[in-house]
């Protein structure tokens, strides 16, 4: 029961922070209230003084902002505690709330899976609330009221937490819609730019289409059962065809939210439009809620799994992973790039979930548990480093007033702390050893390599190929984030803004990213902490955990069996430190050469090395653009401006490059075109003439009468 209280407090606190945000303009009202109830001769003069100081005009705004984020942060802390408690407790708690319609109380269930996602949300929210107060201070109150931002942030977080608690289809959809709609308002927050309005519109449309698909998939299940509670849905036995229909609908709905290719288009539009800490929550956390929905639906509610679904997930995941990172690579806008990279990571999660499904359906629950673990662990890792990178992008935007990678450069000298934290994020997302991203990809590879147990020859050749695609994804991600870090932080500044950029003044903005970076490294060295927790989740949901728990000591990671594969990050760390330390000491022991001589960089003897000579973003990715040319719609032009009498001399050269996603023109434009056409056809009967409309009514009435009689 204690756990349940923790979980409820997390939800309530997030709503409370939203409500408190509404008070941002109510200083005057608070003043009168305090004057009325605390008379001058009251017994608590101190209290009155304190209140008076809080309500001072100059202080109220910032204190109020901090209070809102403190509540939000507390909600995160409670979410983490609740998640940990339920995962340690290893049983599921149920409850009912008498809200909603009188005869339909909301069913609540809090088990290991929900608990794990509580943990993900909690950590993300804590980081955001550390970062938030300083970040939102840049918004002008008149144009972007904090009340709106704070209210919807609170509702958004609360909605996400409620989705995880829901144990019946009604409650689930209400929470889901709360999450979607609140995040729509957050995307539309800076609505003065038309691009943002467009992004918000696309997001809303996709979210609602997705929600429709989810409702339909619940509907399919519910039509065979005697109720809407998940317990009732679990009991139903569907025919394979109906189960597949439900699966496809759920995949469409949850996949749309998760941003799987080809229904990902809202993601690269919406994430850059929202304020950075909201993008961090959307990308790092909300996409995970969609993953949770899919896991809950497929592994828990749908009953018997079919291997064909696993193949669908595997293929979609592979396409998303490779496509996402290739698109990310071409983006000059940092937040768009990060959004596309989320598509990649969601793709990886779907791939491994697909593997788990295939193994489960073929009767290898232990391997399914391994894949399931890898998927959840990757979801966790992605939430850490993607949050970190989005918050870092927010700091960069804050300091350079720009998000274009091509105009930055040399910031490592000017923003040393930010650059270090960002580097940790880049290394984790590139899945380098010692960081958390590597461990989950390693687990994914180990899952894929167990393919020998399967009987089906097609599957046995398909899965290793997808593993190689995973390797390609990892390598491309490394290239992409070398580009990101190199272009932003290294080299010479490419613009005046980045030349004048400075480290953030308010250091509290760095605490959130620092927390996340620390966790990225910590769980890269001690992944077993999370894996042991996840083992319990797998046991609850799949009825099976990893084989020999003894092999999972804190030092070793041996998921399949100890004498087959093992990886020991702490010892790798020790080895790196020893090798690096010895070489460092040995090479610098000579006092004369210990110091370095600083000199100008070599400029090929021409003199005048300028920042314009460095490689730019598009130059860096040019080889990729050529090799994978078919992946994008590339519009590359070189315009030469000529001068002189004969137009012979080149005066200026303009290079134009636009790289576009295939999915818009191939998939969405035909749909919008069709809808427009249809609307035109319908428009024909709308003449605008009242007599015609009366005629329609008359004919309809006659018809109705005829039908009834």
């Amino acid at each position, binding site marked *: 029961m204690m756990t349940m209280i923790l979980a409820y407090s997390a939800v309530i606190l997030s709503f409370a922070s939203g409500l408190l945000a509404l008070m941002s303009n109510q200083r005057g009202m608070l003043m009168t209230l305090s004057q009325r109830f605390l008379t001058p001769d009251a017994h608590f003069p101190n209290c009155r003084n304190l209140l008076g100081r809080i309500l001072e005009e100059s202080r109220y705004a910032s204190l109020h902002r901090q209070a809102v984020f403190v509540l939000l942060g507390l909600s995160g802390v409670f979410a983490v505690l609740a998640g940990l408690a339920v995962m340690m407790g290893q049983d599921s708690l149920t409850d009912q709330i008498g809200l909603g319609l009188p005869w339909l109380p909301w069913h609540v269930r809090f088990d290991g899976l929900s608990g794990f996602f509580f943990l993900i949300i909690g950590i993300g929210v804590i980081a955001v609330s550390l970062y938030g107060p300083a970040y939102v201070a840049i918004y002008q109150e008149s144009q972007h009221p904090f009340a709106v931002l704070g209210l919807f942030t609170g509702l958004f977080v609360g909605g996400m937490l409620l989705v995880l608690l829901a144990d019946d289809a009604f409650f689930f959809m209400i929470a889901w819609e709360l999450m979607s709609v609140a995040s729509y308002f957050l995307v539309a927050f800076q609505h003065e730019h038309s691009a943002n309005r467009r992004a918000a519109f696309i997001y809303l449309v996709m979210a609602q289409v997705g929600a429709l698909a989810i409702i339909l998939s619940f509907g399919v299940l519910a039509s065979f059962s005697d109720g809407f509670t998940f317990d009732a849905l679990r009991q139903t036995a569907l025919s394979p065809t109906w189960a597949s229909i439900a699966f496809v609908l759920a995949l469409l709905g949850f996949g749309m939210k998760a941003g799987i290719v080809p229904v990902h288009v809202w993601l690269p539009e919406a994430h850059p439009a929202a304020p950075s800490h909201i993008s961090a929550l959307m990308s790092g956390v909300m996409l995970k809620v969609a993953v949770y929905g899919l896991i809950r639906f497929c592994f828990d509610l749908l009953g018997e799994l079919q291997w064909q679904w696993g193949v669908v997930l595997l293929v979609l995941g592979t396409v998303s992973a490779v496509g996402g990172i290739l698109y990310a690579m071409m983006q000059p806008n940092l937040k768009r790039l990060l959004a596309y990279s989320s598509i990649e990571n969601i793709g990886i999660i779907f791939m491994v979930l697909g593997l788990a499904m295939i193994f489960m359906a073929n009767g290898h629950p232990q391997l399914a548990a391994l894949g399931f673990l890898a998927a959840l662990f990757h979801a966790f890792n992605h939430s850490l480093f993607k949050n970190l990178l989005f918050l870092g992008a927010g700091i960069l935007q804050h300091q350079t007033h720009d998000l274009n990678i091509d105009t930055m450069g*040399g910031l*490592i*000298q000017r923003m040393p702390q930010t650059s270090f934290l960002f580097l940790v994020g880049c290394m984790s997302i*590139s899945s*380098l*050893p010692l960081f958390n991203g590597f461990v989950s990809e*390693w687990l994914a590879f*180990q899952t894929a*390599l167990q393919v*020998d147990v399967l*009987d089906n*020859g097609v599957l*046995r050749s398909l899965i*290793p*190929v997808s593993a*190689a695609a995973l*390797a*390609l994804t*990892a*390598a*491309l991600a*490394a*290239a992409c984030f*070398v580009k990101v*870090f*190199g*272009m932003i932080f*290294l*080299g*010479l500044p490419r613009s005046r803004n980045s030349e004048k950029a400075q480290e953030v003044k308010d250091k509290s903005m760095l605490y959130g990213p620092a927390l996340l970076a620390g966790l990225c490294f910590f769980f890269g060295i001690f992944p077993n902490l999370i894996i042991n927790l996840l083992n319990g989740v797998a046991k609850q949901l799949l009825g099976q955990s990893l084989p020999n728990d003894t092999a999972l000591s804190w030092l*070793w990671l041996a998921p399949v069996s100890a*004498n*087959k*594969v*093992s*990886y020991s990050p702490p*010892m790798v760390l020790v*080895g*790196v430190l020893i090798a*690096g330390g010895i070489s460092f000491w040995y*090479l610098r022991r*000579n006092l*004369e*050469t210990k*110091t*370095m001589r*600083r*000199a*100008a*960089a*070599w400029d090929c003897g021409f003199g005048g090395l300028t920042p314009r*000579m*460095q*490689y730019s973003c598009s130059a*860096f*990715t*040019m*080889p*990729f653009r050529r*090799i994978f040319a078919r992946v994008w719609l590339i519009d590359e032009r070189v315009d030469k401006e000529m001068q002189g009498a004969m137009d012979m001399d080149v005066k200026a050269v303009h290079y134009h490059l636009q790289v576009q996603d295939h999915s818009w023109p191939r998939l969405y434009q035909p749909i919008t075109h069709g809808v427009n056409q249809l609307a035109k056809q319908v428009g024909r009967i709308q003449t605008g003439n009242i007599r015609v409309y009366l005629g329609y009514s008359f004919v309809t009435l006659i018809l109705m009468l005829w039908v009834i009689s």
Partner: protein
Amino acid sequence: MTWLLAIFQTLLFVALAPLLAGWLKWCKCHLQNRQAPSLLQPYRDLLKLTRKQPVVAEHASWIFTRAPYIIFSAIVLAASIVPLIAVDLPTAAIADVIVLVGFFAFARFFLALAGLDIGTAFGGMGSSREMTISSIAEPAMLMAIFTLTMTASTTNLSFAIVHVLNEGLVLRPSFVFALFALMLVAIAETGRIPVDNPDTHLELTMIHEAMILEYSGRHLALIEWASQVKLMLYGVLIANIFFPWGIAQSFSVQALAYGLLAIIGKLALLAILLSISETLLAKMRLFRVQEYLSFAYLLGLLGMLSHIILEASR
């Protein structure tokens, strides 16, 4: 005891790498009718570099000055998990072959960042090309390795080698394909002809060298040494996975000495092969490297499919 042996093997690995580079150069010079430098020349170069004061560009950041140490440690750690003269060493259990690929990625990540740090066009060019080539080479390499690991049903190198040894001399089509794939990848990843030419500083041919143009003194020494160890790592991988005979399976002095001799012989032979191919072939255009690497990937895939279709136990 076994830990001492493991550390000794790692040190031996690191110490022998310049010798292999010297031997390679010696063979190449003789094949090309040039006068060869002494076999010990790489050691002398490294020693000389470590005694010099490094010159660093004015606006270089800590990435530039720390990268050599990071790269070197990552590669040394990679060397520590690859069985050189004996299998079953405790270090082999620390990390498996996927982590090995991870170590390479780690070193490459920092090398590419160091290339971008100074802000010259050469550095960026080198980084861009290196990341391009490696991102196509990595899947090809893992494809070849998966063939091996699925045969031995382990990703631990030591166990895989023991598995191959126990099977005895069996000609597996999958291994032939995987061997060729790994060889092609090794050439690309270590920056040898026809993908990259380690001996020139021409703008059109540089990949690896372009990134490290700004390095000098002990930093350069570390990077050069690391790339020599990397070359040897690929050599040892090819030699010990596909031709593991001779490697010590017990820790007696005799077996170890025999193992050392065997690996030296195998590496010498591989180096001769490499120098012949480098003498015969010309450097490729950058955009033909993708065809070359796709071919390597295809070979890896064929290896895997032939394992699944022809050799799998069921």
